[in-house]
């Protein structure tokens, strides 16, 4: 069970460069394309991206989820840090606030903390008791600008 003493915990900062090939791979995955030649041009042609007003190839809107998985020990790094059991977790909510576009070449620093932890249901009622954890992540680019805020909520079955 997630360790409630972790409420308020701040994770170490991690920085990661946004790679255009990784954007293309993500764009292919969510558009269910077999290869990156068939994704939208904006995700593979920097001129198309610039003509659309971006500094470089932009990310798909849910790409920020990958910053948590490719840094800090990935899924298990995060799950273990809050004392949860990965085999009992279900992702229940995701919320993004976008302040400025993230593009290929940006260096993003991830600032994540545990902002909520509470129990729902009664322990005696099997299947109805869950512990809810919410992580808030601020993404800051190489110019020190806050570009995105994410809130990720998961439930751990009791």
């Amino acid at each position, binding site marked *: 069970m997630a360790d409630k003493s972790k409420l308020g915990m701040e994770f170490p900062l991690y920085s990661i460069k946004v790679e255009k090939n990784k954007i293309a791979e993500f764009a*292919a995955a969510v558009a269910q394309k077999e290869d990156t030649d068939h994704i939208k041009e904006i995700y593979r042609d920097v001129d198309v991206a610039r003509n659309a007003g971006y500094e470089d190839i932009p990310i798909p809107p849910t790409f920020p989820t990958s910053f948590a998985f490719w840094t800090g020990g990935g*899924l298990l790094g995060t799950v273990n840090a809050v004392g949860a059991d990965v085999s009992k977790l279900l*992702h229940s909510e995701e919320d993004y606030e976008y302040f400025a576009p993230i593009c290929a070449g940006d260096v993003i620093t991830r600032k994540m903390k545990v902002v909520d932890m509470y129990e729902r249901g009664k322990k005696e009622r099997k299947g109805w008791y869950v512990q809810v954890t919410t992580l808030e992540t601020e993404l800051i680019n190489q110019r020190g600008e806050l570009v995105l805020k994410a809130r990720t909520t998961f439930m751990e079955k009791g």
Partner: protein
Amino acid sequence: MAVNFDELQIGDAIPAYTAAPITRTHLVRYAGASGDFNPLHHDETFAKAIGMDQVIAHGMFIMGIAGEAITSWIDYKYLRRFSVHFLSMTHPVDLDDFENTKGRATITVSGKVVEKYEENGEKRIRCEIIALDAKGSKKLTGFFVVAIP
């Protein structure tokens, strides 16, 4: 983008988007792209060990499909908020029983304009969004906000 703030009305639908039936290969591709290697999404033996019949899609893959629906309509640079609740699990299609299982694995995203307002000097709209499978099961609901140029 050809979206015009003044022409949009409350209740207007955003273009519906239907994804291909989700296969296990799609889940593996999404795992590699996102870095989410929770074995629940690709390893049937793990799924069974924790009491589930089979692997399930990443919730974030379904949200990614919803993101594809949004950005097929309006550019990412106008997106200000995108927020969802995950409501049910999605099982991929079984390739040895395609016709009987494709419905549960075929996601359609739809939405409509629910609010028009100004904020931070921008004209913004708030849209509700929902993802359903072809059997009518709700996968996620939520909303997004875009600034209309």
